[in-house]
């Protein structure tokens, strides 16, 4: 029952799609007749023939008329076959059959009879070509063409659009056409058309309304002013949404950079100033991966997620074993020693790779942007980073809450001696935890490589911010890190238009400094026994 129903609907769908195409396609003999008429008639008559071709609804019509406008529509003298010249260099020109589109290879220039055109016809053609896409079968093409018309409409075009509106059955295309027409009508002083443009985010529509608002007709001016006001409100909402998006995007970068630190500093209590350099290592892993797999930036990027984690985790474990374990219980010394490590790592990258920034390619599926409406478009790479940050956060949360390792980590942090006497290998837990935190830093680096420059100073620019996020959120609290990162990012972006990027950053820093005075243990302080450590 259900299968047959879905089959029926599928069939219906096919019919719906195919029907207009069948209608639109004229037969080859009709088309040849039209082209013949175009070739043989006088300039005055050609105008009518052009209109006829354009109105035929044939999908190939655009190709013919474009070729004709460029002087590339020709007839082979002997056979009378119509061709489109693809390349007109040299003695022999490459041509394709105008009807079938088949390539006919090279034909001597002398055998070709070009169909003549003059400037008056060219102008006429320009107007027709601008609406010819409105008559094709594909509704997407029609919609795009209708959108392109906004602000370009003149008197003859307005008439054409009026005619097209009678037959257009796609509601989106209708709306776009109506709007395009309304812009023209408002420019001509039509009050009724103002209502159509009300709430439109299109720049050309605003230009038209602005013009109307200056007009002498008080009714028109008032209506236009009201419409403009509504548009302003709508724009404000959109720009607020955009700010929020940028804020979340910056925030998710901060969360990514800080979340590893939230493990090593927050949970283990180890101050790792080389955290930023672990992020840098992750970013360089992405770059290295792309060098290994040239031409496949997407695959390289996906492979660098585990690779970046591994590289940074191993580096982190090496740091833990060689330096940090000797400084247990001396947090300030740990801070200094790991800072030394960070200097060494930075200089290592400068010496071994290059002091200059490296370019990491953004794969195609990550570039571009998502258009929400005409005033709001979201860049894809940042969208991916936001998603990635959330996934990493969720993963870490799972590990800390639901796995044996997470349990052991929490036990060792709360009471090392007790945990050890319960049979937990504290050293092993230290290594694994530090590796995990460092690995996450590597993941942050992979993500950052897509939105900032990859250079030796990459880590340095994030280390202070990361510590701020962790301290602001509350040490030892992963949720705190998430909330702190996202809110700091948003605050920063909200302040930026008023204060400028640098001042916004300063304000945020000062805010955190003051906040810590008020609540030394951050937004979400730890409670109970863990707080005593």
């Amino acid at each position, binding site marked *: 029952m259900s299968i047959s129903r879905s089959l029926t609907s599928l069939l219906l769908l096919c019919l719906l799609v195919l029907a207009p195409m069948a209608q639109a396609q004229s037969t080859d003999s009709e088309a040849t007749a039209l082209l013949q008429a175009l070739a043989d008639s006088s300039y005055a008559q050609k105008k009518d023939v052009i209109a006829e071709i354009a109105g035929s609804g044939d999908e190939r019509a655009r190709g013919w008329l474009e070729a004709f406008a460029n002087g590339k529509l020709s007839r082979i003298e002997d056979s009378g076959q119509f061709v489109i010249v693809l390349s007109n260099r040299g003695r022999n020109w490459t041509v394709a059959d105008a009807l079938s589109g088949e390539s006919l290879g090279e034909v001597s220039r002398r055998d070709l009879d070009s169909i003549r055109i003059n400037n008056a016809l060219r102008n006429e053609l320009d107007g027709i070509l601008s609406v010819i896409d409105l008559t094709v079968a594909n509704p997407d093409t029609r919609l795009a063409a209708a959108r392109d018309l906004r602000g370009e409409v003149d008197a003859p075009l307005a008439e054409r659009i009026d005619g097209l509106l009678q037959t257009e059955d796609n509601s989106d295309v209708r709306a776009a056409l109506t709007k395009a027409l309304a812009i023209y009508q408002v420019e001509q002083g039509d009050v009724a058309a103002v209502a159509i443009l009300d709430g439109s985010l299109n720049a050309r529509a605003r230009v038209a309304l602005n013009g109307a608002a200056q007009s002498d007709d008080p009714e028109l001016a008032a209506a236009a002013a009201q419409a403009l006001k509504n548009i302003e409100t709508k724009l404000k909402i959109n720009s607020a949404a955009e700010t929020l998006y940028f804020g979340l995007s910056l925030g998710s970068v901060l969360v990514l950079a800080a979340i590893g630190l939230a493990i090593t500093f927050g949970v283990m209590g180890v101050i790792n100033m080389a955290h930023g350099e672990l992020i840098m290592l992750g970013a360089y892993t992405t770059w290295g991966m792309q060098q290994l797999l040239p031409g496949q930036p997407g695959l390289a990027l996906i492979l660098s997620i585990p690779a970046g984690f591994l590289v940074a985790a191993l580096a982190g474990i090496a740091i833990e074993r060689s330096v940090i374990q000797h400084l247990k219980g001396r947090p300030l010394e740990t801070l*200094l020693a790991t800072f030394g490590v960070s200097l060494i790592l930075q200089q290592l990258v400068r*010496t071994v790779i290059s002091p200059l920034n490296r370019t990491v390619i953004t794969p195609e599926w990550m570039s571009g942007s998502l258009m929400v409406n005409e005033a709001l478009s979201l860049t894809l790479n940042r969208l991916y980073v936001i998603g990635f940050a959330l996934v990493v956060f969720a993963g870490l949360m799972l590990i800390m809450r639901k796995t044996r390792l997470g349990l052991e980590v929490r036990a060792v942090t709360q009471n090392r001696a007790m945990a050890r006497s319960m049979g937990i290998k504290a050293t092993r837990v230290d290594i694994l935890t530090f590796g995990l935190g460092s690995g996450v830093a590597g993941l942050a680096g992979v993500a950052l490589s897509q939105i900032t420059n990859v250079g030796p100073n990459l880590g340095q620019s994030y280390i202070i911010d990361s510590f701020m996020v962790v301290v602001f959120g509350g040490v030892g609290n992963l949720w705190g890190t998430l909330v702190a990162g996202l809110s700091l990012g948003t605050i920063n972006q909200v302040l930026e238009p008023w204060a400028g990027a640098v001042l916004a950053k300063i304000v945020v820093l000062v805010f955190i400094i003051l906040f810590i005075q008020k609540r030394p243990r951050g937004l979400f302080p730890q409670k109970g026994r863990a707080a005593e450590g």
Partner: protein
Amino acid sequence: MVASTLNTSKPWLLRPFNERSTQLFLGILFGAVALVTLLHLVFPEGHALHVSAYTVTLLGKYLCYALLAVAVDLVWGFLGILSLGHGAFFALGGYAMGMYLMRQIGDRGVYGDPVLPDFMVFLNWQELPWFWHGFDMAWFAFAMVLLAPGLLALVFGFLAFRSRVTGVYLSIITQALTFALMLAFFRNEMGFGGNNGLTDFKDILGFDLRSDATRLGLFIATGIALAIGYVICRGIVLSKLGRVSVACRDAEARTRFIGYRVDRVQLFVFVVSAMLAGVAGALYVPQVGIINPSEFSPLFSIEVVVWVALGGRATLYGAVIGALLVNYAKTVFTGVMPDAWLFALGGLFVLVTVLLPKGIAGLLQRRKKAEDSDNVAGQEVTA
């Protein structure tokens, strides 16, 4: 209670002079300064024993760093506060001095404006911002050298110590402080010359800054400032306040419960240290001839801590040794193989903290202790 003992016990500043280590330190310092002065003045240029004006200025710069290191050691070594933002106080003192030197240029700048410094003319500023007024007077500028860092330390310290922000948190927010100031001073709109800072100085107190005599004078002044700073710090350490601050370092909660106002002790010592750092910065600027926002960079502040760590924390003279050694090494390294300097510095951070927790001074003390126990058993060693 603490404050009253401070005000009435007058001889606290004289107490260090009875101490062997201070006598030795001052002896060596003045001896070295006198020797350099003599070698510079007596021997003509080109002579093997001649110390060039360049070297004199370089040594003066090292002494400024040494004073800064002493200031850091006072708060880190004796108060337990690891400040990663002392560079900010250093730079503020430097900027106060720089502003004075800027105003001394007068109409000898590139644009020849009698009042506005060159960078303001360049930015099309019409009049002097309010905070630049008064810096044409030496006494005002020199007061600001102490007041500007002191005030910042007072406000920052008041907020931080009152809320009992200590340990790593304090370190990180001091770092954030200097980072925020660096970003702020990089802005042209702040009115401190932005990226380029203040430079092109002509003279100080009427003396030409480019003449050898002025340079020598500044070097000697720096030596004296270091001596005074050292004696002040040593005096504080030996006073009752110093004992309390060491108690705060080792057991903050216990000290509080005994009845001491820990936050006030911390605040006082912190402000004194900031002022010393400011003086160091003020002496540094005329000798190097420029002050720009890079002095605020967190890296510089943390480097200072490593000088102290290398020399030996909580000894004061160790801080001086560390500052001189590291900076001499830096001069040599950056000249011979510039790439290797960060490796060396980073390695130093790691090695000192892991292998040499008490620094060079710790090594010296261990030897001294061994000798002492050989000679007179049980004699107390002042730490």
